[in-house]
């Protein structure tokens, strides 16, 4: 059985629409599960239609199924095994696969253009060749960039920025050379240039991500998400496939919006993040400048006492909570508080964690109802009326300096108004500065009690004392 090109184009359009509905579903948790099913349905339609349109059910078809089965089993296995705290690594890893798949499809189309109706080898239609080389280059950048992001998130590679002299000029030269290579490739159809283009693109993906530090990863992951979309769209143009074009555009704009939201959450421009090196100068601010200021520190007993006498508590989680895997212990503490008729809510800063929405997923995993979790703008006015703010694993996003000191590198960044609470409990291992390399004024406030301990252990101890 073989269906006509027109009919398959219509089906591809249908699957593109289903993908739009899949994203649309994410506007609220209630509709999100249905949205995901739309996405799955769209994918099934796209794959089935591809089989029907080639009409090739020979031995090759068996192998296609085999490879889908092998890849699918690996994917399913990972999806069930992965801990929620490792979600940023997983997403970075998946991005690299999309990028590599795009590169492979482009290579295949370049070597055998007849199979895709793109002309013959050495004489590929100009338009297709341009689209193909853009798709391949962006795919290659996505791949190597995501691999670096993955290694940094996984901790295999140091999260601190890697910078060297002449980095930016070098990157600029490489980016220009990619454009030149695409131009030359299209005018000569030389396969050597095609391989060179891929090599250079892999290299620049690598070089673009190494100078970016660990806490800027939310931007990097979103950006690579966007790239993977543009790569897919490039291949979609080559294959004249509507589903792929629509999806590529959706994913590309989705990633771009997320990057924008993340940059705004740090009050930094996209270029400032991409050029990297932020936080690398940490060591140059010599500790002698900082005067020794008194800090009030307490133990679990003190914290439990403060919370028991509160009527409302706001929890401010950050990356440290993820590292300490403290989300379950936290929820148990909150359950105990609620039994004592204390009102508890959670305040999430847009860049808390290592990827957009990271904290929300962890809290959901610990069975925290999503209607107790609030975004910065929703909850910031409530701090003034709350009795206790419990800061667990967050730092820079609570620093009042962002509002008061124009000299500070984080000045202007939206922060949670934690200091307006009657009292602040700050769980932290030590007084060391956060990622931005600056001291947090909150530590020295009159109403702040520092709890120096591992986040998980401290939370458990507080629960015992409640």
């Amino acid at each position, binding site marked *: 059985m073989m269906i006509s090109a027109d009919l398959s184009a219509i089906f591809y359009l249908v699957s593109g629409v289903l*993908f*739009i509905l*899949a*994203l*649309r579903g994410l506007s609220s*948790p209630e509709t*999100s599960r249905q949205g*995901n099913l739309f*996405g799955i349905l*769209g994918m099934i339609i796209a794959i089935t239609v*591809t089989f029907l349109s080639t009409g090739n059910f020979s*031995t090759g078809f068996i192998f296609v199924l085999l490879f889908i089965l092998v*890849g*699918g*089993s690996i*994917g*399913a296995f*990972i*999806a069930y095994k992965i801990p929620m705290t490792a*979600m940023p690594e*997983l*997403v970075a890893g*998946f991005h690299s*696969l*999309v990028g*590599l*798949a*795009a590169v*492979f*499809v482009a290579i*295949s189309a370049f070597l*055998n253009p007849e199979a*895709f109706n793109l002309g013959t080898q050495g004489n590929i239609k100009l*338009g297709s060749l341009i689209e193909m080389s853009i798709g391949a280059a962006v795919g290659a950048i996505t791949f190597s960039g995501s691999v670096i992001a993955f290694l940094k998130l996984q901790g295999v590679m140091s999260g601190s920025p890697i910078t060297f002299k002449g980095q930016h000029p070098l990157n600029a030269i490489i980016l220009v050379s990619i454009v030149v290579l695409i131009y030359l490739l299209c005018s000569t159809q030389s396969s050597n240039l095609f391989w060179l283009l891929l090599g250079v693109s892999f290299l620049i993906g690598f070089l673009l991500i190494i100078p970016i530090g660990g806490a800027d990863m939310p931007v990097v*992951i979103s950006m690579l*998400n966007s790239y993977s*979309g543009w790569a897919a769209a490039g*291949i979609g*143009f080559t*294959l004249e496939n*509507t589903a792929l*074009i629509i*999806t*590529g*555009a*959706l994913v*590309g*704009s*989705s990633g771009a*919006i997320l990057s924008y939201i993340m940059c705004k959450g740090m009050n930094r421009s996209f270029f400032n993040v991409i050029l990297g090196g932020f936080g690398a100068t940490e060591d140059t601010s010599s500790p002698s400048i900082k005067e020794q200021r008194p800090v009030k520190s307490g133990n679990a007993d003190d914290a439990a006492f403060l919370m028991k006498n509160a009527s409302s508590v706001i929890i401010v989680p950050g990356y440290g909570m993820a590292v300490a895997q403290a989300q379950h212990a936290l929820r148990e503490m909150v359950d105990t508080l609620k039994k004592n008729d204390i009102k508890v809510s959670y305040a*999430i800063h847009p860049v808390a964690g290592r990827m957009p*929405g990271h904290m*929300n*997923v962890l809290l959901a995993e610990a*069975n925290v*109802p*999503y*209607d107790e*979790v609030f*975004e910065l703008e929703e909850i910031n006015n409530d701090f003034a009326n709350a009795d206790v703010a419990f800061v667990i694993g967050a730092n820079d996003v609570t620093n009042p300096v962002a509002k008061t000191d124009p000299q500070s590198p984080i000045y202007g960044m939206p922060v949670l108004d934690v200091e307006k609470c009657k009292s602040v409990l700050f769980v932290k291992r030590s007084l060391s500065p956060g990622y931005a390399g600056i001291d947090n004024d909150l530590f020295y406030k009159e109403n702040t009690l520092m709890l120096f301990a591992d986040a998980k252990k401290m939370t458990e101890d507080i629960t015992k004392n409640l």
Partner: protein
Amino acid sequence: MEIDPLIFRLSIFILSIFIGYYVVWSVTPSLHTPLMSVTNAISSVIIVGAIIAGLSGNADSIFNVSSIFGFLAIALAAINIFGGFLVTQRMLAMYKKKKKDK
């Protein structure tokens, strides 16, 4: 005069960017992680290109350089499709509302 089909594809592309823009802004921030994993899964619809590439060999030689790249791409995209949708499903199942106080 005929319009180049490329223009139509370009129109679809541009309009989809706008759809993506509005749809993604309406995604609630608490679901941004599932948004990333699901966009990951759907961008793996690139598997359609991989399938065409994989089937490009003829009956005598299923495996040639071009189809091998196709098969590899199929496996990579399949990891993403299954992994992406399933992990999204797993995450979304965890988002629960507060139980109504009785």
